[in-house]
């Protein structure tokens, strides 16, 4: 993919900052994240819990509680600055252009409504009649591998398994023809065999519909299985970007290397990263990873490294 002619990315995030206001003070959840997603690409966003992955994704959808959140930077989707869009305009972007699926599909569906109706609602929103929307919903459910679709469409969420529900979520997300799917930990709540099926479905969607996907996860297994490109996030910034192979075998940022070393593997003792991630309520001077980094030097403590050649580090590992 990387040898293609460069085209304008589908989504471009530049210097994204997200501050969440709370009575106890502001939380600087995202601190200048830069990344882009190209057409037809499956992109992974990995990082520890609380590093700002989900907040970043919700910012793209503008699903954060807007009265308590201050944004900075730009999120450009096909030339439109999403952060400048009014709420009414955002409603047209959501679903029709960018869709999102969530970690726990059972709680992400209305418990009191049949799943078919919830999928059909997306078509109703685009002006289709009740019957037509219902038919389309059944087709869409069949498309994501639910069978018998017509019968299962009449089920309530509590009557379906986690894997089935995640398929319903995907059907709902894609019903309006979104070109970008944001999947926030789509497999975390599912068991392993079902995980593989859902990831296969996501890959299939990319092949069949050309949907771009941003998968947020802390599971490197998911990344290895699905992603073309990976972005590693730490303390609200993207610290390294590369192809899945680069990240796994030739990571340059010390954090990425430590993160991969901490994955439990057969025959290899996992190495825990010492220390804890920084408190996101405080201002961080220098490189956020410096206090835990094995390659830390004087400069890291008071200067923030910019991304260069994939890694935001003054002293990256040199690739052989």
């Amino acid at each position, binding site marked *: 993919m990387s040898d293609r002619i460069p085209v304008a990315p589908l989504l471009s995030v530049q210097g994204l900052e997200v501050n969440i206001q709370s009575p106890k003070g502001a939380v600087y959840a995202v601190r200048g994240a830069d990344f882009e997603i190209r057409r037809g690409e499956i992109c992974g966003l990995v990082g520890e819990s609380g590093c700002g992955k989900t907040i970043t994704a919700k910012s793209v959808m503008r699903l954060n509680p807007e009265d308590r959140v201050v944004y900075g930077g730009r999120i450009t989707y096909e030339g439109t600055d999403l952060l400048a869009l009014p709420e*009414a305009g955002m409603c047209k972007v959501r679903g*029709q252009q960018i869709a999102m699926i969530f970690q726990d599909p059972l709680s992400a569906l209305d418990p009191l409504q049949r799943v078919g109706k919830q999928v059909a609602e997306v078509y109703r929103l685009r002006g289709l009649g009740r019957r037509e929307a219902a038919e389309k919903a059944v087709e869409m459910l069949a498309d994501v591998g639910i069978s018998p679709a017509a019968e299962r469409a009449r089920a309530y969420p509590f009557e379906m398994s986690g894997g089935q529900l995640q398929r319903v979520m995907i059907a*709902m997300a894609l019903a309006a023809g979104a070109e970008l799917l944001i999947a926030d930990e789509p497999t975390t709540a599912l068991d392993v065999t079902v995980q593989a099926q859902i990831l296969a479905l996501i890959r299939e969607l990319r092949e069949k519909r050309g949907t771009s996907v941003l998968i947020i996860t802390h599971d490197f297994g998911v990344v290895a299985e699905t992603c073309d490109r990976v972005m590693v996030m730490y303390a609200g910034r993207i610290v390294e970007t590369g192809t899945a192979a680069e990240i796994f075998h030739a990571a340059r940022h010390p954090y990425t290397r430590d993160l991969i070393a901490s994955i439990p593997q057969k025959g290899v003792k996992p190495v825990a990263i010492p220390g804890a991630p920084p408190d996101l309520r405080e201002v961080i001077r220098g490189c956020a990873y410096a206090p835990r980094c094995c390659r830390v030097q004087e400069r890291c403590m008071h200067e923030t490294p910019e991304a260069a050649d994939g890694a935001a580090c003054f002293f990256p590992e040199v690739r052989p």
Partner: protein
Amino acid sequence: MVIFLLVRLGDVDPVSVVLGGKQSSPQTIENVRREFGLDKSIPEQYINWVKGLLHGEFGKSFKYRQESGQIIFARLPVTLSIVTIAALIAILLSIPAGILMAAKQHKWQDTGISVVQLILVACPPFLTATLMVWMLYLFSPQTAFTGSPRTFSELMERTFLPGVAMSFVMIALLSRIMKSGMTAELKSDYFLAAKAKGLSTAAVMRRHCLRNAIIPVITSLGMMIGILLVESVLVEEVFSLNGLGVALVEAVGASDYPLVQGITMFMVFVFMTISTLLDLLYGVIDPRIRKGKAI
């Protein structure tokens, strides 16, 4: 059973109630005992009473020498109307108020309604009712609001204010429950997911959150209707209306056991019917209950 025994704990001789404490010959007393079945033992009286209940007879009133049922149905419209008016006002006002508070949390709308809630919750029906009567006396003394209404419009006219008086506390409580329910739904995952589909916040609230949030309101509504039935006694008294509540108090005062029993049984029956209807309503709203799955 409990009602039956409790009522009989008093040591007033029923015969003296029937005869109004006049001097009577032993023959008259005997006749009265036979007429009301008091010559039988207490267990037999109980069995007769239950038998009567099964036939829709609540027992013969000592004081009125009439079937309690007739007295109950004569008095019923007033109480029923007050309770219905109170419940309707409370439902119609508290649900939108609760939704508004949840939607505008921490904004002036929320704070404003909170203050109103605090005032309303501190307005017990007997106080509100008394103030209302006083205001009527001051500003509109020609308004007729006491006595037995004869037509439907008269009934509405006379029971509207008592209904309003009783609705105050209920509005405060129900709107608070609605607000907390709605606030919880607005924090749920499905709220975000539905927004991610492209629905506006208002559309998600209307199509998804409302049904979910209203379930606890229905629960408390069932309990509150019981409270309303009890409170109607006070409010009827203040407005001098001939309702069931006043009839009950009078019957207790006059040691008219069959009537006390009859009215109490009837209220229990109404309360149970309403609870059952509300339980059925749960099933309509929530498929998990209908299909027997624990939440």
